């Protein structure tokens, strides 16, 4: 559905959950009908507005898992239950799957949040999910408890959580892409879904291409408006805005991008190498 009215809505924060030392989940008292992979723009009046991928929209609440990495997200982390923010969206494309498929999810950093949201849908569609979460060390792993809980439900017993940490403090010592490689070597995976650092997603793309597996990749670029006007988030090769034709792009589209895995652009449109 085409959104023509893009004015923000004032939304109350119901609850703030501390996930890791970097990440908090903000439970907002609204449903915007967001689907897994989509994003919303969050406005802190007087400061700025930034896009955030949706960690959950359950029909009554909107969850956003936000890492404190800059002035805006640091300010977010100071907000408490009862405070209000502006919300616009949902914007962008979503993850999709068919009934009964065997899927691999590759999450780096905060990427576990939108993929956890999608895991609910995948499990409800009787898919088997190999959910790989990576982080630098154990205490930075995001949502692993919740993923295990979801996979302990009777309909999801075939699904598994896999963990990788750089320092080996939990799960596989090394990169989560190594775990993915092992899994696609063993199992007949029909699609790889990935959210996280672009270098990680680039490796997943190469693997998918080499193995002839489909993939859905969350391509992230510097977004301003969120609805395809300002042009700041356009990807080279296709020239399309990622806020409209992304963030989630199928493998065949990502393969046509000239910048993917190589560079992105800052808020002035200048190329920045990864």
């Amino acid at each position, binding site marked *: 559905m085409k959104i023509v009215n893009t004015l923000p809505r004032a939304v109350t924060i119901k609850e703030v959950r501390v996930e890791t030392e970097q990440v908090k989940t903000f439970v907002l008292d609204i449903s915007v009908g967001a689907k897994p992979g989509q994003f919303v723009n969050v406005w802190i009046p007087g400061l700025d507005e930034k896009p955030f991928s949706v960690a959950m929209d359950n029909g009554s609440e909107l969850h956003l898992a936000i890492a404190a990495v800059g002035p805006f997200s640091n300010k977010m982390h100071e907000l408490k239950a009862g405070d209000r923010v502006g919300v616009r969206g949902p914007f962008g494309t979503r993850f999709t799957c068919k009934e009964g498929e065997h899927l691999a999810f590759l999450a780096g950093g905060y990427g576990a949040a939108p993929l956890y949201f999608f895991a609910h849908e995948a499990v409800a569609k009787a898919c088997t999910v190999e959910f790989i979460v990576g982080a630098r060390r154990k205490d930075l792993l995001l949502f692993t408890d919740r993923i295990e809980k979801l996979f302990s439900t009777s309909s999801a017993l075939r699904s598994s959580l896999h963990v990788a940490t750089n320092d080996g403090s939990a799960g596989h010592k090394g990169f989560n892409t190594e775990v993915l490689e092992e899994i696609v070597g063993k199992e007949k995976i029909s699609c790889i879904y990935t959210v996280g650092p672009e270098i990680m997603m680039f490796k997943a793309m190469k693997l998918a291409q080499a193995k002839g597996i489909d993939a859905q990749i969350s391509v992230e670029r510097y977004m301003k408006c969120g609805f395809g*006007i300002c042009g700041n988030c356009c990807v080279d090769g296709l*020239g399309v805005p990622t806020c409209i034709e992304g963030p989630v792009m199928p493998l065949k589209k990502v393969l046509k991008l000239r910048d993917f895995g190589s560079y992105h652009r800052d808020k002035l449109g200048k190329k920045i190498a990864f």
Partner: protein
Amino acid sequence: MADLSVEFCGIKFKNPLVLASGILGVTADSMANVVRCGAGGVTSKSLWPYEHMGHPNPVIITSEHWMLNAVGIPDAGPEKAREEIARFREVCDAPFIANIVGGVMDDYAQIASEVATMHPDMVEVNISCPNVEDELGKPMACSIGKSAEVTRLVKERLREAGSEKIPVVVKLSPNVEDIVSIASSVLDAGADGITAINSVGPGMVIDIDFARPVLANKVGGLTGPAIKPLSVKYVYDIYKAKKCPIIGTGGVTTGRDAIEMMMAGAGLVGVGSAVWLHGPEVFGKIAEEMNEWCDANGVKKISSLIGKAHENR
């Protein structure tokens, strides 16, 4: 099948629809995509002679009838512009209009010298953004004297660089007392044509829950379907007085809108905010609708409609 091609300031366009400055236009590939979607030509975002920061978010808000923006003309400077224009030339053969801007008079001279060597098909001079302010005032250089001075400076710098053949159009603001006098002054100063109009206002939207303006810049330029009666009127007035080449811009979203703008006097039609309603595919949609209207009304060449409304007084 009507002939939609037009010649504007000596440059051939496959159809009269050009991407208006400020929409998409950050990268060569995004402008090439707009051409693939059906545009006859493209206009870059305003190019500065140096890095220029835009405003913080929110920068654009929309409703059913209008768009309000204060992006603040962010730009990475001439080095990036040179690379993107060269790339556009590699991947696309549609005409490229380089829109240039400055905060002070010397900026226009500097950026004109820079773009002269980037070989755009045309230069469009932005003297009318309602959202940035410097010593040229707000809207920028929109007095009769300053607008002529900017035009002379740009023409002079193009001439010095051996690029005097690149046509120069000046993009005017509707937020002035007398747009026709300003059009006259820039044409007398050597401009080859006029772009009319830049965004209207500025306007403001207040969020009543937060009790504050939504745009970080508080105010922004109004565009979209709501302003079309204004843009048509200003194009009509300028054409009536000057019979000059005009890029008519403001609120065009359909083939009928584009034809209306041409009948007012536009030789090219700028399309911008319509991308928000229909995506870049809007260019192909408008071109198709123009073609259908021409076929249904026995119009063989779209260029025959330029200024048509002036024949019926």
